[in-house]
């Protein structure tokens, strides 16, 4: 039951905030903050309560479940389930949710109620994606998170917001619909084999498929997640959407929406279509390395602060893709840590970009320089997260990327070497960011206020979490271990079954 609350709190608080904002905008902000904090606390409690089970690997497949009949005509259930993987991603979701509400506190002054409605509903949609165990419900939530995100970009974004928001919507919608066709094809294939109409994830796992059918369905799913992740040829919506979105929108996009793509690959693509995914792995890993290098090199060339950070996302998510398709435990754990660490460090960089834009009304780094002299605390935070992004040991990103590289080394040495070059490129763009914006002399004579208390309150926990991930990631690894074991089992069970059938 607790799972429905996670979603219901966000949906209801969004509506209340919308209505309340007519009289009192401040109250709307507090309501949104309370809702995200409530959800975060709930997930924390669940985590602490079940932590022993995670360590001892004694829990079953799911630690919490909820299964209601929804549309019996098609065998559709409202089925939510929580395991270690979803739990970690949900904690990230609500943590960044709190950050997004706080960061909008001063930035959003128009349409405050509608803004928070959209923000909370995006979070609700993302929560649904991470919890759905019925493929129809998953698609439902997948599509649902688009609309509020579209509004966030289109209404509160920067100069080219219309273009960016429409591009974002069209890319994701098209790829999502192709996934819908694949879901339906799987649904009918399962019926043909077993006589049962169901969208249930665990039942569809054992669907026998011909290798061509499996291949095409895998591609349908892969494309949807590839656009979200994003993977290089289909990434072009990302720099625009991230750059034009308001700060909270960028944080949610980079920190969470991209993760839904990675989550989909982990949860659905490989376990549902292990054979095809195995064949496809070399291509996916090559695409991943291309993404790592391409994102890094393009980030290096940017002068727009947010655009630079946007391109680094492509590079970081390349590591996630690499880890997922390497498909061994080390690499998968690494991919998960990278997802979380990237959510925090990139989220924080977007927050800093937002703070800078608030103060300077520009994101152009050629107009910055020597900001350290006027805003030492903000610049220090900027340096910290830039170092996180370049993979400095001791911070979260390093652990994730290191594990991914370690896992990939067992699969392909060449790709590992090339991906390591990507880490090097990260050093270039991160240091260049710091040098351009914060170091040097203050040639434009900027006189700007440093961080205020609310802003410290946003950035300090992010610093702490990133350090924690970097220094003592064991709790995260413990929590996700059994979930990742399960996913690997699904995939291998399927492969052995196929081998026996032959």
């Amino acid at each position, binding site marked *: 039951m607790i799972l429905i609350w996670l979603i219901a709190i966000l949906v209801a608080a969004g509506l209340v905030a919308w209505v309340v904002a007519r009289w009192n905008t401040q109250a709307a902000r507090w309501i949104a903050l309370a809702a995200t904090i409530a959800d975060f606390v709930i997930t924390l409690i669940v985590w602490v309560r079940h932590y022993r089970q995670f360590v001892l690997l004694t829990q079953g497949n799911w630690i919490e479940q909820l299964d209601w009949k929804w549309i019996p*005509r098609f065998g559709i259930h409202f089925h939510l389930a929580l395991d270690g993987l979803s739990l970690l991603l949900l904690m990230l979701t609500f943590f960044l949710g709190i950050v997004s509400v706080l960061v909008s506190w001063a930035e959003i002054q128009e349409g405050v109620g509608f803004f928070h409605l959209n923000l909370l509903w995006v979070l609700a949609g993302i929560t649904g994606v991470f919890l759905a165990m019925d493929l*129809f419900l998953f698609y439902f939530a997948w*599509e649902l998170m688009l609309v509020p995100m579209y509004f966030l970009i289109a209404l509160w974004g920067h100069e080219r917001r219309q273009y960016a928001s*429409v591009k974002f919507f069209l890319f994701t*919608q098209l790829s999502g*619909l192709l996934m819908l066709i694949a879901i339906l*094809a799987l649904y009918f294939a399962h019926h043909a084999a077993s006589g049962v109409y169901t969208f249930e994830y665990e039942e569809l796992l054992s669907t026998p498929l011909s290798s061509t059918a499996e291949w095409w369905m895998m591609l349908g799913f892969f494309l949807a997640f590839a656009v979200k992740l994003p993977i290089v040829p289909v990434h072009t919506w990302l720099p625009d959407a991230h750059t034009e979105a308001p700060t909270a929108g960028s944080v949610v996009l980079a920190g969470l929406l991209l993760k839904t793509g990675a989550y989909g690959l982990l949860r659905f693509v490989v376990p549902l279509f292990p054979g095809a995914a195995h064949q496809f792995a070399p291509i996916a890993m090559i695409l991943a390395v291309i993404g790592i290098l391409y994102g890094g090199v393009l980030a290096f060339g940017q002068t727009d602060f947010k655009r630079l950070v946007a391109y680094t996302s492509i590079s970081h998510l390349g590591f996630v893709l690499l880890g997922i398709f390497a498909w061994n435990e080390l690499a998968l754990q690494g991919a998960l840590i990278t997802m979380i660490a990237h959510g925090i460090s990139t989220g924080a960089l977007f927050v800093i970009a937002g703070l800078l834009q608030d103060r300077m009304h520009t994101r152009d780094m050629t107009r910055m320089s020597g900001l350290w002299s006027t805003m030492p605390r903000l610049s220090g935070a900027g340096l910290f997260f830039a170092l996180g992004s370049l993979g400095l040991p001791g911070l979260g990103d390093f652990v994730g990327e290191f594990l991914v590289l370690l896992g990939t080394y067992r699969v392909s040495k060449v790709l590992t070497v090339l991906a390591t070059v990507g880490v090097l490129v990260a050093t270039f763009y991160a240091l260049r960011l710091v040098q351009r914006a914060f170091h040097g002399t203050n040639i434009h004579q900027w006189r700007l206020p440093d961080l205020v208390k609310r802003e410290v309150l946003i950035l300090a926990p992010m610093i702490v979490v990133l350090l924690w991930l970097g220094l003592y990631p064991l709790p995260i690894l413990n929590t996700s271990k059994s979930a990742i074991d399960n996913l690997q089992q699904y995939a291998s069970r399927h492969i052995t079954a196929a081998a026996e059938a032959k």
Partner: protein
Amino acid sequence: MTRSDAIALLPLIVVAGTSMLLMLATAVRRSHGFTIALTLVGLAAAFGSIWIAAPITPCQVTTLLVIDNYSLFYFGLLIAGDIGIALLVYDYLGKRDVHREELYILLLLATVGTMVLVASSHFASFFLGLETLSISLYAMIAYLQLPRPLEAGIKYLILAAASAAFLLFGMALVYADLGTMEFARMAQISSAGTAPRGLLVPGLSLIITGIGFKLAVVPFHLWTPDVYEGAPAPVTSFIATASKGAMFALLMRYFYRSGGIADRQIVLVFTIIAIASMIAGNLLALLQGNVKRILAYSSIAHMGYLLVAFLASGQLAVEAVMFYLVAYFVTTLGAFGVISVLSGSNSEPEQIEDYRGLFWQRPALACVFTIMLLSLAGIPVTAGFIGKFYIVAAGTSTALWALVIILVVSSVIGLFYYLRLIAVMYLTPETHVTTLAQRTSSIGGVVLGTLTALLLWVGIYPGPVLHLVEGVFPR
């Protein structure tokens, strides 16, 4: 006609009777309030009588009409839609200084035409229903007697008359070949006979021309944008929903019963029409700056989607079409409802610019319009999403990959113009003198509120509607 025949036909008789009563009442004394009241009572009674007719279905009333669950479902849909349209007409005409009462008579007559269409099992009733519908529509489109409605009315008259001629010629050819006008017998004769059927395919093609005109599918769509634009908004909503919906119901019954769908040439023709409608409808809508024209092209595309389900053929296809039409009725009525409610005493909000900043001035109305447009685009939580899901499911179940993928791609193109329209409503408003209605009338509010609630209800919990369409197949 036996007693049970009369009971089976009760919904039809009540609607026809109401139109006669209205005509007499208007001759005695004009009263807008009384007219709408009588119309609503008549429609409500007709709606209720569906449950009286339901126990004795299926029932073949003469060779002309068949009252089965399929007919009754569409009766219900058409009558319920009509109630919404009548209320919108009341709101719309209330703001204008014209004779108002005749439009309701025409509306009811047109409804009789649509009901005959969905129940017909014979060429004669097919044609009679079609003509009853068309002739009422000529007058409805031109009702305001302003230059643009008149132009639209004439255009519709000429093209509809021409297409009816094609249809008749087609029927004659099919009759010459098969020697029967009953749908069900056609299947028997054409499957039994071994003689070459030289006239059958040309005949069917001409019939497709006639049906295609009413459905406004490419290449028979040219009248649509002009008529949509010229006709009063509530009348446009009737053309978009009832007229097309009834025609589609007939299309399915005719081609499934007569076995026409089994012919590979016919399937090819419909496939081409479907693809052309989906692509052309959505692409041409991109170029429009007039909201009613956008909705016209969007409806062309939607008929293309429906054809995908039609081509999937089988139980799932029939259900998908029925469900989709429910969603489409609600959505389209809602969208034209917003236009109609926003209309002033002598103008309608037609240009996209008229909607600029609507959200900040009339948030409720803008939200309703947004939800309707998202439903047309097939975004979750709305009925349109489940409808689209149903159609894609029907297409996937019979492996119509090319059609399904074109549906998906073209619907993404469609999303582009819906988003454009939505985005405009949320821009900061310009202060300018407006000729639009400044506040929503209570009737308009009730209609739009009900439609929105229905849309979300069907979108979130479609169980009851799915239950209604489950297992229904045209006899």
